[in-house]
């Protein structure tokens, strides 16, 4: 087994989980358990495809900057809009979060498939034309041996994922906005009494979180696969793993960087060791089992820093006692 190659592909693939879990952490900190994350990631992926298609069919020569920016913007837009739909139903119409979230997943996956089929074959060519720009941000990485392979061999989205995770961690821990957001997730009634606009925080956090999660789908299609995931099954399964990762990292995006590398290492391990198909299934089970163990252990230890937001999954209605 080639350790360097394994490590570098684990770090590269970790961006899917990192985007997904950072977005979901932002959302969950506001008290929204968004089970629509897999659907939102699929919407992010198709958003990227729409962006790429628009660019490739209009541009004569393909330049790196717009080729990355346009899919990125569309992915953010599509995922954010799906998050907005979730928010409208749960915050404004006060529907059950679990039900709405699951519906968003079904709907998002369906809509993504539909749009893909509607766009037709030209998208595949567009993805192929654009995806090279998503990879290998630093061309000099090849000259640096193992050092370059581990630190500089990735596309722009991997670095963006780490940057977003670090920024989220700082905002949550060190700023007033982060404090308010956490207050809204822990006890919205108290936050409301303190003059924090609960609705605005919940809307913003969920839409921003969804947009970030959507980039996970974009990364998976444009950087990792370089082609459309025809069944969208892997994108959906990765979305659920991202939700699991949020628990695994006890709602801390900075821990998420390491956690996502661990998850992607577990996910990719069967590709690097010679194992039978049956063993591969047991390997694939590991991330979930590890998450369950962490979930149970944190609830047994009752350490205050590692608990879920107290109001996770509950809607806030001012006039309800």
């Amino acid at each position, binding site marked *: 087994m080639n350790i360097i190659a394994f490590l570098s592909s684990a770090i590269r693939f970790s961006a899917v989980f990192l985007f997904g879990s950072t977005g979901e952490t932002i959302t969950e900190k506001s008290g929204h*358990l968004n*089970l629509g994350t897999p659907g939102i990631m699929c919407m992010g992926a198709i958003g990227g495809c*729409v962006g790429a298609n*628009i660019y490739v*069919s*209009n*541009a*004569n020569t393909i330049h790196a900057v717009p080729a990355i920016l346009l899919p990125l913007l569309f992915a953010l837009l*599509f995922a954010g*809009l*799906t998050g*907005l*739909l979730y928010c409208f*139903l749960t915050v*404004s*119409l*006060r*529907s*059950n979060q*679990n*039900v709405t979230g*699951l*519906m968003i*997943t*079904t*709907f998002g*996956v*369906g*809509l*993504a*498939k*539909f*749009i893909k*089929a*509607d*766009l037709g074959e030209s998208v595949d060519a567009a993805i192929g034309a654009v995806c090279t720009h998503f990879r290998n941000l630093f061309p000099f990485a090849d000259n640096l041996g193992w050092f370059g392979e581990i630190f500089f061999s990735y596309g722009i989205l991997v670095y963006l994922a780490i940057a977003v995770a670090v920024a989220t961690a700082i905002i949550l821990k060190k700023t007033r906005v982060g404090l308010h957001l956490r207050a809204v997730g822990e006890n919205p009634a108290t936050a409301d009494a303190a003059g924090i606009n609960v609705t605005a925080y919940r809307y913003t956090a969920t839409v921003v979180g969804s947009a970030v999660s959507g980039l996970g789908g974009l990364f998976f299609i444009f950087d990792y696969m370089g082609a459309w995931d025809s069944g969208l099954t892997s994108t959906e*399964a990765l979305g*659920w793993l991202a*939700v*699991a990762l949020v*628990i695994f990292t006890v709602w801390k995006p900075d821990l998420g960087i390491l956690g996502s590398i661990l998850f992607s290492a577990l996910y990719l391990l069967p590709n690097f060791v010679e194992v*039978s*198909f*049956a063993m*591969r*299934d*047991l390997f*694939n*089970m590991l991330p*979930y089992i590890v*998450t*369950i163990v962490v*979930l*149970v252990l944190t*609830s*047994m230890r009752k350490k205050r820093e590692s608990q*879920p937001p107290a109001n*996770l999954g509950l809607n806030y209605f001012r*006039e*309800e006692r």
Partner: protein
Amino acid sequence: MHKIERPMRDPLFHISKRDDMSWKKRFLLRGGVILFSFLFTGILSWILIGVDPFTFIGKLFEGTFGTSRRIWLLLRNLAILLCIALALAPAFKMRFWNIGAEGQVLMGGLATAICMYYLGDKLPEPVVWLFMVVAGILAGALWAVIPAICKAYWNTNETLFTLMMNYVAIQLVSFFTNVWVKDGSGVLKNATHLNGIKLPELGNPYLLTLLVAVLLTVGMFIYLKYSKHGYELSVVGESENTARYIGINVKKVIIRTMALSGAICGITGVLLVGAINGSVTTATVGGQGFTGIIVSWLGKFNPGFMVLTSFLVIFLDRGTGQLNLTNNAFPAIVTGIVIFFIIGCEFFISYRLKFRKKKKQEGEVLQTEDAPAAEQTEEAKERNLLQKIGDGAKNCVLTAARGVKKGALFIGNQTAKAFRKGKDLFKKKPKEKAEETQTEKEEEDV
């Protein structure tokens, strides 16, 4: 923060809780919303796939009731979805968010398949049936009891726990399939691998499933409404403290209810694997564990309503499935939109919107409201209420229309601007026209 004092303004509307809507009105509102959502999806299908609304709705009915085989398939799917929804009802009534039905059903199915594989050639078939049913129920219950115990003793978040258990179950099924199937195809066949065992057919292959579903519906209705257990779990759901105060053993109730929930999921798994499919794959449940949650919630955890809601979901699924589209993702969109509408409509049933009134009118309204309400006859009250609802609806529609108009103008302007800009940047090609309509459709969807 110090801000310049501004004159206080009432918000545009405020929301208050209501529980005074009569069941007739609720029924009408729900029915109306469902009809409206059908029409809406019909119009959407017109725009997106070129099937006009009336043909679309006609096709829905033809697709579900067209032939006797289609009716049987409808009944089969209905029965399975209903069983899952019924299994979830007691857990949800206890406010235990069991998202793990998918895994519990799958584990029931896997246990059934294990019995078929290892015992099928050693014991007579009726004995194997018995083992299948018992093993399926136990496996389903086990998969539900593990999170329940953690919830009862350490207050572990059950939503996340049960969600994870789904994927462990899926991987276990995949593991066993790969162990059993030696030729590497990954397809488990009833005749070659599972000794050709199938649960007895009662004249029709789906009749057994249907009977079980009917029995479960009646049984669950009685259990929730008339049994002591049913009462206890609803008290735990309303308030754990109250339950503890009146001497209910909360831990016991949580574990017992989840065992029941998992056991019924297990039975569903036995039916799916033993009677319907004859084999188990990772896609045996096919997301119905999640759909069951929606069905159960929409049916207000009442077995009678759940029959209706699961019928609605299966009707949409089967109906749009028969449209023979090249684009096979359309059913998911239709189901999604209809359910979003229903979810949205629930808000208007349990909450009341009061719009801001103009200052002058406010005085008048206050005067009328000041008049002793007790003297109003029942009829007048009813009329008053209707009037208010009518006004509310009118206001709602007007504001919505205004909003839509504004939004459409804004989106139109922005897209026009964007495309004008795009034109300068790149050379325009005829393809753009198609994209333009595409993005517009997008915005309509959301």
